[in-house]
């Protein structure tokens, strides 16, 4: 039976998650140099369009269609066949099946967009489009099935991922690492300028924050106690992540910075994602704060040591925070908060769930890294991933899209 309140919440959540991709575009777009901002916008927005199309044509079916051997969903929902206005009780008994499909679509489209941070300012637009569609097909859709699909083997194994710590953040983060390695450093790295417009970065972060309430809260697939819990934990982890980064900045770099605050905020949000509907508010504070600190270390020390050019820290933030948050479910999850969850180490005293989470992390990370790496190598061979050096110099906006974001005069 369709419930009007549940439906209202998931419809608005879907809209909120959609808004996150433009949010990401502003976040990333403000960080790059003026000459590349439109290339970031184009990649983010076209990811929505082409991966969205893939999703309705066959992606949704691969992910959520009736199970085949625990690994893939088959094609019986392809072209939205059998996906109608009545509920599909397997996933959400009180909202139309079509609504569940479109809510999930918003996750599928933002995940490849997250990866853009790793190869921003140098990737060919055509190569990106091909990459996005293939990656969604061979990486995202299977992973979504394993973790969330009825019959998926990680789901059956007991892995918990409330709103996408593994499926979205780890998978995108590992792909980002692979991409940074395959695509290579930007010309002139590490002298690649400072963020050209931090006001846009703040705008992007604000939209991401706002949208994240739909991302996590909507993952309850109903409106009530669990959506409320996810909302609250999301907010608290975001705050704690921001505070942690600001404090570290203040102590270690002498000044609290805006980009630091926003980075910590995103780290907190990404980390709480897999845990948001399973843990309590105080645990969320801890998850967020530790996420801020871990991502700070990864961006500050690890990246500069290892010298790969993850331009906008897609791995350093989403990958690291997603991993931490997925583990954290095994620490703080509590059936007192969500009876469909589990009791983590701190409640049950047993490490079982922690182990399950760890296995899920390893499986998902390895799968995403290996397939992303191979896919990118292949594409590099067949169509080339990078723009030419002089196009990189002039900027992708003019050379890939024949546009400038801002006029200089008039």
């Amino acid at each position: 039976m369709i419930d009007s309140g549940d439906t209202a919440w998931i419809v608005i959540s879907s809209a909120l998650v959609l808004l996150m991709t433009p949010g990401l575009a502003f976040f990333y777009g403000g960080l790059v140099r003026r000459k590349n901002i439109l290339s970031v916008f184009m990649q983010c927005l076209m990811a929505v369009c082409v991966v969205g199309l893939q999703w309705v044509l066959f992606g949704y079916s691969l992910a959520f269609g009736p199970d085949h051997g625990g690994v893939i969903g088959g094609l019986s929902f392809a072209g939205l066949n059998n996906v109608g206005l009545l509920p599909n009780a397997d996933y959400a008994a009180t909202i139309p099946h079509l609504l569940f499909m479109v809510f999930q679509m918003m996750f599928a489209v933002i995940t490849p967009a997250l990866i853009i941070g790793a190869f921003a300012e140098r990737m060919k637009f055509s190569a990106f489009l091909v990459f996005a569609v293939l990656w969604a097909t061979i990486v995202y859709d299977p992973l979504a099935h394993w973790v969330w699909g009825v019959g998926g083997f990680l789901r059956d194994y007991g892995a918990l991922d409330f709103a996408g710590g593994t499926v979205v953040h780890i998978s995108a983060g590992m792909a980002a690492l692979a991409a940074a390695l395959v695509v290579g450093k930007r010309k002139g790295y590490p002298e690649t300028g400072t963020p050209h417009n931090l006001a846009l970065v703040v705008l992007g972060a604000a939209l991401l924050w706002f949208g994240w309430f739909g991302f996590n809260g909507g993952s309850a697939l109903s409106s009530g106690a669990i959506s409320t819990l996810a909302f609250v934990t999301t907010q608290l982890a975001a705050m704690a992540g921001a505070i942690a980064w600001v404090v570290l900045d203040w102590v270690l770099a002498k000044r609290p910075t805006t980009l630091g605050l926003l980075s910590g905020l995103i780290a907190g949000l990404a980390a709480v994602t897999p845990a948001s509907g399973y843990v309590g508010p105080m645990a969320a504070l801890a998850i967020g704060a530790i996420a801020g600190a871990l991502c700070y270390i990864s961006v500050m020390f690890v990246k500069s040591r290892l010298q790969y050019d993850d331009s906008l820290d897609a791995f350093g933030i989403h990958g690291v925070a997603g991993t931490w948050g997925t583990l954290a479910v095994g620490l703080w999850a509590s059936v007192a908060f969500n009876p469909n969850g589990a009791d983590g180490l701190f409640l049950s005293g047993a490490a079982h769930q922690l182990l399950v989470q760890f296995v899920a992390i390893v499986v998902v990370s390895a799968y995403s890294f290996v397939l992303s790496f191979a896919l990118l190598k292949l594409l590099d061979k067949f169509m080339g991933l990078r723009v030419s050096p002089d196009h990189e110099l002039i900027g992708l906006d003019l050379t890939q899209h024949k546009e400038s974001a801002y006029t200089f005069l008039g």
Partner: protein
Amino acid sequence: MKYIIAVIQPDRLESVVEALSEEKLDLMTVSEVLGRGRQKGVAEVYRSHVQPGSLLRKVKIEIALQADKVPQAIDAIKRGAYTGNIGDGKIFVLDLSDCIRIRTGETGESALA
């Protein structure tokens, strides 16, 4: 005829314009520049990586005028721009060989005003 280029602190623009006005020097062209001088720049930090910053925002004023008005102009600029701190700026004086007013076609000194 001379062509004066003055680089000053951005927030002194209004008082310089005023001081020049008092001398009846009302015509000028103003632009935004970055200056590297004795005043030390402030290092910037992005995602915790420190970027040594060396360029500070300044304002550049250009004035074409008769040679005999140069001392007045310099005085006025000094008056308006002086704070006594490093970074107050500099004035450069170049020779101007001709000036043309587009609207009337006038040339030379009569086109300056």
